[in-house]
């Protein structure tokens, strides 16, 4: 009797494993289309978003003093910069009028707070406290004051997840701001990204700013990605290996902005 129950328990466990593997493989092969994912994401995002929000609030409260000090420093630096930029702005307006260029419309931004982060097995994502109700859609660009953060990956009514630039599956068209050379930015790990597709003869220097080029349809051009920290000259082949130190520190990120569309322009 006892032996029979042991055998049935053994068979039951293997049957469960078989079914679990079958369902997982089924999901992998047949459920990764946008429609199926949409409903699953919506439900789980709402649950986890509500779970992580109190934690995020607690963390924000604990970090208030440090943040306040940092903001004071930034404020002082920005006031100086603002004065310089006001000068540059008027000069720019005058020159544009002379050249007959249209003024580029500023972007319509949705402010959001980071309520959760996940970083494992090379995947990196954030949960934000805004969703479809605030006009967030999949593939919208997410930025912070320091530069590009990532793209919206999935959206529920009040939350959304963001595929951050530190995700190994993330890539975007980028360029060297000074020389306008274009390449592809990818995350390599060890706190650095890599810019590929730049010829050995390309004009790139250490300290050059890397920005999005806007040649793919998701990201708007000119968003800061990072600065060139090292150029691997020893790399064989036609291309240079350019390492990029990111501008945005995801671990410190609290407030981000989602670019909805240029004001007066078509939706992104």
């Amino acid at each position, binding site marked *: 009797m006892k032996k029979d129950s042991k055998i049935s328990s053994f068979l039951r466990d293997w049957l469960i494993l078989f079914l679990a593997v079958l369902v*997982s493989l089924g999901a992998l092969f047949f459920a990764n289309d946008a429609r199926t994912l949409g409903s699953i994401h919506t439900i789980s995002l709402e649950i986890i978003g509500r779970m992580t929000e109190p934690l995020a609030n607690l963390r924000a409260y604990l970090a208030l003093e440090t943040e306040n000090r940092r903001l004071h420093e930034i404020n002082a630096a920005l006031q100086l910069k603002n004065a310089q930029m006001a000068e540059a702005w008027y000069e720019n307006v005058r020159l544009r009028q002379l050249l007959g260029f249209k003024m580029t419309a500023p972007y319509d931004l949705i402010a959001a707070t980071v309520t959760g982060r996940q970083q494992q*097995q090379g995947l990196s994502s954030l949960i934000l406290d805004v969703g479809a109700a605030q006009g967030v859609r999949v593939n919208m660009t997410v930025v912070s004051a320091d530069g590009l953060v990532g793209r919206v990956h999935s959206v529920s009514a009040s939350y959304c997840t963001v595929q951050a630039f530190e995700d190994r599956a993330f890539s975007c068209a980028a360029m060297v701001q000074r020389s306008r050379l274009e390449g592809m930015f990818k995350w390599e790990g060890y706190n650095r990204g890599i810019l590929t597709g730049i010829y050995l003869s390309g004009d790139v220097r250490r300290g050059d700013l890397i920005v999005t080029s806007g040649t793919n349809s998701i990201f708007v051009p000119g968003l800061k990605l990072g600065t060139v920290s090292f150029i691997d000259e020893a790399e064989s082949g036609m291309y240079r290996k350019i390492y990029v130190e990111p501008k945005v520190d995801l671990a410190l990120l609290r407030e981000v902005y989602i670019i909805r569309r240029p004001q007066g322009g078509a939706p992104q």
Partner: protein
Amino acid sequence: MNLLYYLVMMVVALGLQHGVSDLVAIRGVSPDFILIAVCAVSLFAGRGQGTLWGAGIGFIADSLSGSLLGSHALALSLVGFISGSVMSYRSLQSAYSLNAGAIVGVLAVLQNLLLYIINIQGTAGALQGMIQAVLLPAIYTLFWALIIFAIVPQSIWEKIYKTEPTPLF
């Protein structure tokens, strides 16, 4: 009803993974609390329930992490089955907790390797990627598993273990 304890373990693991793991991350490498929770549930509930919990939490993790739906579910159901097969409640008693930690480490390598192959293979720097996305997180998860197994008082493990098991079917 020990089902409630397992549910609490999973909810806490999800909360830690999404709310705390980045705070303890070292150079982008963070521990996998969900894997530790699946291993712990398998110890108490056996490999059958461990597999089911692994698959369930895996689907939730998939929908939150941006990975392919089914990848975490597949990896964690295997983790639940294997950990329930090779470990028992005795593994959590202090004299054996090092063994339990080591098995969690090995299972973390297995899980990360599977996820790496499914989700991010083919990206730049394959070898460095394997180290960064597979080995280092597994070692760090092992470290955290040892800490968790050591700091949770034996009385709590006893309480969960002695609670009347919930029949699977």
